[in-house]
């Protein structure tokens, strides 16, 4: 299939394959990753592309995720573009260099096939891994489809390497629900991607004897505060840059995602269902079905959880009668999920009458059924008639 946007191909591929192809289109200099369910085929796919001569990249077969993040850290420090991928336990293991990647302001993209954190012993889908590291200074993006995975890997490098951002990016996609299921994906033309994404050219840090510098000297508190300050400012810049890159991507590849958030039938809605990740797909159907039943419902899809798009979310939720937040994770200190807690913080001074329902479900790969989503919407709607503020957390039911 060809257009004036170059020759793109349409394939039926899994989410992992989409991440593989997205990464290869960005021409990373170095890839270092350790296999872990459900991400393993990302790494295998890249190794295969390198072995076949389809991708010119150095692949380092590291012995653990801690080393994977360390190797890419060294590579970006030396001026290269790098890629890695992991899940749950791997993310936990690499936390030490992971925190350093963002605080050293080294741009990169990391694919995160989100998975529930052990214990109980599990390998299946969940968002706990991503939300557990949300305050490590990375940009975190949640996607809804395999197409979005591929597109956001490309957008991710563009945002990350922007001179006003310089923060690494996580592309989070639901383990198994996206990583292993096959969907229709349009693969952009490589030359078009090259035009959209120029080579990485570091101006702020380099390990090179021609420009000697100590990278990360011992730093006193007064200076450390300056570094944190600029990092937080860069995060706020990222909110703007994310929308700009989304618009530019749409111009080049004819696909737009709405920027830091996306909405569906929200403008005239009285109630809103808020989701993050693959659940959004089910929620879209729930919105249509609820509308048929006469419930004025809309959907708010949170794409970026870091930086948190507080302003845009306030815009959507103000003057709504109520909203439901579906969390595929728990926030241990708050008896709700993490997304609910963040949204509550963002809209806290908006309206005391707004009724909100924290919903927790889909942990450890458990199903989030359409029936249960509609059930939680019914709970919200009926409670909103007499109650205000935060309702009791609703745990989605499964047949045991």
């Amino acid at each position, binding site marked *: 299939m060809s257009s004036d946007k170059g020759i793109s191909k349409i394939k039926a591929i899994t989410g992992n394959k989409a991440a593989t192809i997205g990464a290869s289109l960005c021409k990373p200099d170095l890839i270092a990753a350790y296999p872990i369910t459900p991400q393993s085929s990302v790494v295998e796919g890249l190794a295969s592309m390198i072995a076949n001569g389809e991708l010119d990249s150095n692949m380092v077969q590291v012995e653990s995720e801690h080393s994977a993040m360390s190797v890419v850290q060294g590579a970006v420090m030396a001026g290269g573009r790098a890629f890695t991928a992991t899940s749950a336990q791997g993310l936990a293991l690499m936390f030490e260099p992971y925190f350093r990647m963002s605080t050293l302001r080294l741009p990169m993209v990391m694919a995160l096939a989100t998975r529930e954190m052990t214990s109980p012993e599990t390998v299946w889908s969940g968002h706990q891994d991503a939300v557990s590291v949300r305050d490590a200074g990375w940009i975190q993006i949640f996607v809804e489809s395999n197409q979005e995975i591929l597109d956001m890997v490309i957008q991710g490098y563009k945002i990350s390497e922007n001179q006003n951002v310089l923060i690494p990016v996580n592309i989070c996609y639901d383990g198994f629900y996206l990583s292993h299921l096959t969907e229709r994906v349009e693969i952009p033309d490589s030359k078009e991607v090259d035009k959209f994404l120029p080579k990485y050219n570091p101006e*702020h840090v380099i390990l090179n004897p021609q*420009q000697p*510098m100590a990278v990360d000297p011992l*730093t006193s508190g007064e200076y450390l505060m300056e570094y944190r300050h600029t990092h937080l400012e860069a995060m706020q810049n990222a909110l703007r840059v994310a929308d700009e890159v989304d618009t530019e991507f749409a111009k080049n590849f004819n696909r737009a995602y709405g920027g830091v958030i996306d909405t569906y039938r929200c403008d005239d809605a009285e109630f809103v269902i808020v989701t993050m990740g693959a659940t959004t797909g089910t929620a879209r159907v729930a919105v249509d079905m609820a509308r048929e039943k006469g419930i004025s419902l809309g959907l708010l899809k949170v794409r970026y959880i870091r930086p948190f798009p507080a302003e845009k979310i306030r815009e959507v939720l103000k003057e709504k009668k109520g909203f439901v937040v579906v969390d595929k994770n728990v926030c241990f200190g708050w008896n709700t999920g993490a997304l609910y807690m963040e949204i509550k913080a963002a809209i806290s001074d908006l309206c005391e009458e707004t009724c909100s329902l924290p919903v927790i479900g889909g942990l450890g790969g458990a199903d989030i059924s359409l029936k249960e989503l509609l059930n939680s919407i019914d709970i919200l709607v009926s409670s909103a008639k007499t109650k205000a503020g935060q309702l009791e957390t609703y745990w989605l039911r499964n047949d045991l």
Partner: protein
Amino acid sequence: MERKSFITPIGNKGIYTLDTGSWRTVKPVIYKEKCIECGICMTYCPVNSIAYDKEKKYHINLDFCKGCGICSRECPKRAIEMKAEGEI
């Protein structure tokens, strides 16, 4: 590369130098008449405070010498003596 304010923490303004010469309580003194210019003291000085030039040959640079005494101990001809700071 010029420094861009407070993005990645980098140190490239100067070389951080401590006044380690102020640490010592004893200082090395080379007895020229015993010195055979083998250079072994220079190879063993951890602070590189033993330099060489055509006139002074092997000589002590007291700027950063910490007074550890290794040069004195290792000199094969016992040509270096550790004397108290202040002694001439």
